């Protein structure tokens, strides 16, 4: 197989990086509603994980049919779709690196969900990690919040 020519690679690169008409001047100034979308994104992501975990715990034999008929797995899938929906809305208004780093807040929710819903063990290092992550997220979003 011949490697793609330089000209073709250039065309692919232009397509991938093309910001679209006028979009190169769109400022990333998040409105309060974008933070709500981001929060919903994180909540749906963790709910999907919690539903998936519940499904795994309740399923005796993991077969394809069992996956399709499990309301918990279907609920998990719905949550993932909702997460994707709100992620698009987030990306329309928030810089990618700010939004992506802020999603690390899911460590806080995963810790809470694990403890409350599944009675999992929480270690002091887990808690310390979450506190440090929250401090980091604050540093990242501080400018955009003010």
């Amino acid at each position, binding site marked *: 197989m011949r490697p793609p020519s330089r000209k073709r690679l250039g065309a692919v690169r232009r397509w991938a990086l093309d910001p679209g008409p006028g979009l190169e001047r769109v400022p990333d100034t998040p409105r309060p509603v974008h933070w709500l979308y981001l929060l919903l994104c994180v909540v749906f992501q963790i709910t999907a994980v919690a539903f998936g975990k519940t499904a795994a715990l309740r399923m005796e034999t993991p077969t394809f049919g069992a996956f399709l008929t499990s309301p918990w797995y279907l609920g998990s899938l719905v949550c993932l779709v909702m997460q994707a929906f709100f992620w*698009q809305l987030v990306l*329309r208004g928030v810089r990618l690196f700010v939004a992506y780093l802020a999603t690390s807040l899911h460590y806080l929710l995963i810790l809470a969900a694990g403890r409350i819903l599944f009675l999992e063990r929480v*270690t002091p290092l887990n808690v310390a990690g979450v506190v440090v*992550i929250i401090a980091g997220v604050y540093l990242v979003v501080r400018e955009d919040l003010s």
Partner: protein
Amino acid sequence: MTRAVAIFLAGVVAASIGQVFMKHGALRGRDRSVLRSFLDPHVITGYALMLLSTVASTIALKVLPLHVTIALLPLGYVVVVLLSVVVLSERMRRDHVWGMLVIVAGIVLFSLGTL
């Protein structure tokens, strides 16, 4: 194990590039409904890369020991930040860099607590 690390890293890079594609798709679809923006080739490419990344990490995690996985986990955040600045020309200040480093440290700390 080197091969597993390489596969895992390839997955991380694929997912990060996928996020850049999704950002492009989201910006291009600003004037359309969100549902229609899921038909944008950039968004579709983004999700395809995410799927590829999931497959790659599943293969790699079968072999990788937990302590190596913990060290590699926060890399996705760093790669996305780098791509945001280099490819998307997003403006980054010193606070953002510190924030990213603190988050990475927090994730490592959190993961050490699960060992």
